[in-house]
């Protein structure tokens, strides 16, 4: 197996490198990829089309927002898949989860350090605030729904690591994060469907200006992008936490690390 693998890998590597002399130079501004009309368009017209200075956000949430919608769906699938795989025999609870009688008698208790506890208590709100900033300010600075969503999810994960999974799950129980995850995709696609209903193509946000008479098409795009980013953040944050919660507890959602 090792030899087969090695040969396959070397062959692939040779193949990949064989085209190297045909490559444009690294950093060449006039390489086909960089000088293509598509890329030029993004750089030149983003502001005009939607007034969003962060081109990445604009391309992500507007020009190629169809991709991004499915990307969100991929995240959703990952969460659902992990629940489907790991929660074997574990009933997915309907309604409220019974509150744990006492703090779980797991190893976590030993690590329930005051320093960690305090740090987390300080850190988590800041993290969450930062997450909202990242989501909201994605138009102007690096960031957006994905990054913000992950940071938001991380804040819950941090809580789960520091205090144990159960307290974290009390705040964000399974039914809730599953719902949030679904709602995120619903929000995203609802923007697209709204455009559809107003007679334009799917995700053609410009037409949404009809709904708010004070804004024009460009602004409508800008605001819609924010809207879909919020949807992305919903799904991503919930699923990131879901992934962690399931993986950390072997799908039992109790105890944790």
């Amino acid at each position, binding site marked *: 197996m090792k030899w087969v693998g090695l040969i396959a890998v070397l062959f692939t590597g040779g193949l990949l490198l064989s085209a190297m002399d045909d490559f444009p130079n690294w950093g060449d501004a006039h390489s086909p990829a960089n000088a293509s009309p598509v890329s030029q368009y993004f750089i030149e017209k983003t502001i005009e089309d939607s007034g969003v200075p*962060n081109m*990445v*956000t604009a391309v*992500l949430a507007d020009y190629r927002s169809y991709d991004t919608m499915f990307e969100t769906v991929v995240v959703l699938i990952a969460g659902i898949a992990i629940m489907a795989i790991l929660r074997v025999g574990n009933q997915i609870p309907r309604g409220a989860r019974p509150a744990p009688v006492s703090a779980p008698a797991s190893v976590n208790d030993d690590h329930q350090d005051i320093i960690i506890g305090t740090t987390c208590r300080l850190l988590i709100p800041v993290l969450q605030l930062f997450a909202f900033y*990242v989501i909201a300010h994605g138009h102007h600075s*690096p*960031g*957006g729904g*994905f*990054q913000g969503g*992950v*940071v938001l*999810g*991380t804040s819950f*994960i941090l809580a789960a*690591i520091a205090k144990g999974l159960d307290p974290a799950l009390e705040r964000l129980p399974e039914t809730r994060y599953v719902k949030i995850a679904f709602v995120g995709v619903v929000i995203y696609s609802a923007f697209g469907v709204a455009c559809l209903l107003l007679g334009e193509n799917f995700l053609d946000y410009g037409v949404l200006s009809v709904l708010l008479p004070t804004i024009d098409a460009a602004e409508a795009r800008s605001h819609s992008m924010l809207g879909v980013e919020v949807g992305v953040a919903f799904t991503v944050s919930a699923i*990131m936490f879901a*992934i*962690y919660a399931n*993986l*950390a*507890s*072997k799908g039992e959602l109790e105890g944790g*690390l």
Partner: protein
Amino acid sequence: MIWQFDIIILIFLVITAVISLRVKDLLAASMVFGTYSFLICLLWAGMGAVDVAFTEATVGAGISAVILIATVYNTRRDSSD
């Protein structure tokens, strides 16, 4: 981007990748993988791909490493290779 800096990171990248695959302790491997992610995120930031870097920092160095560690915790730390 200072290209010397770029090269140093690239070399370190290869080193961390090899280490994370060769170390027999899976927990250590996961940690080194986190380092790898962080290095590659630095590299991207240097290349001007700030959004990608940000995402990699949160997802690669953050979530990926955490869920790897969570799995290692729930299974076994030692590995034959």
